[in-house]
């Protein structure tokens, strides 16, 4: 059962990678990166059970946090064009 789940996760990873390679717009690639991060979380979780190390589940949870913060930062950069860290810090601190 875990092998079938792993096969599905690997297929989705390959599809997300194909979307990141093909594009065509910037948002396709951002979405591909986000999907790939989510698939990495699933990959670690399923691999933990598949190879008898279910304690890897905790590590997958931390990856989900990194992925979320990374996507928010990328989208904020796309929106404002910069991180607002040179002299505009604190003007629109919306995080």
């Amino acid at each position: 059962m875990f092998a079938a789940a792993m096969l599905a996760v690997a297929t989705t990873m390959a599809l997300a990678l194909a979307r990141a390679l093909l594009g065509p717009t910037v948002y396709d690639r951002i979405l591909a990166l986000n999907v790939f991060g989510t698939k990495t979380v699933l990959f670690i979780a399923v691999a933990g059970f598949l190879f008898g190390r279910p304690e890897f589940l905790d590590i997958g949870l931390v990856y989900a946090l990194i992925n979320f913060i990374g996507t928010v930062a990328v989208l904020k950069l796309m929106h404002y064009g910069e991180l607002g860290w040179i002299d505009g810090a604190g003007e629109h601190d919306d995080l």
Partner: protein
Amino acid sequence: MSALAFDALNVFLLACLVVTGLAIARLRGLFAVAMLSGIYSLLSASVFVLLDAVDVAFTEAAVGAGMTTVLFLATFGLTRSREHAAPHQKRVPALLVAVACGGVLLVALSDMPPFGAADTPVQTDPITERYVETTHEEVGIPNMVTTLLASYRGFDTLGEVVVVFTAGIAVLMLLGRCSRERAEDES
């Protein structure tokens, strides 16, 4: 079954790494390259997890997929985000350097013990047994890896901290100069 699945997953991940690396080398739009390098580091993190190196994998994901992507994009905000193709006469030396480095790495690889070998120095040397048995009494920290890093290898860790501290100071000096110049321009 499990060993077969392990091998198949490794082949799949390494094949994805090769595809991503080739795409990074060929693409000229740097935004796509930043996204693909994030995917590259997530893939390497998965490989590290499969090899039971979860701490390395975690650092790779946090720095490679998280921090570096954001830093790349912040840089594109200040510079251009398209790469000029290198002229042909510059490509040949670059290819030679890459092939030479790869060859050296392959030669070095032949000296390494096979994956999971039981007779490596780490497994057979008596010092391993000594650390496993006495670190708890000598230092008293429950985690053995932390004991080794913070106590027995204390000077090594001190050197690493000095490097990181120096890098932080350098970044602060650069950023501070940037904002000072801007403040002078405005006043």
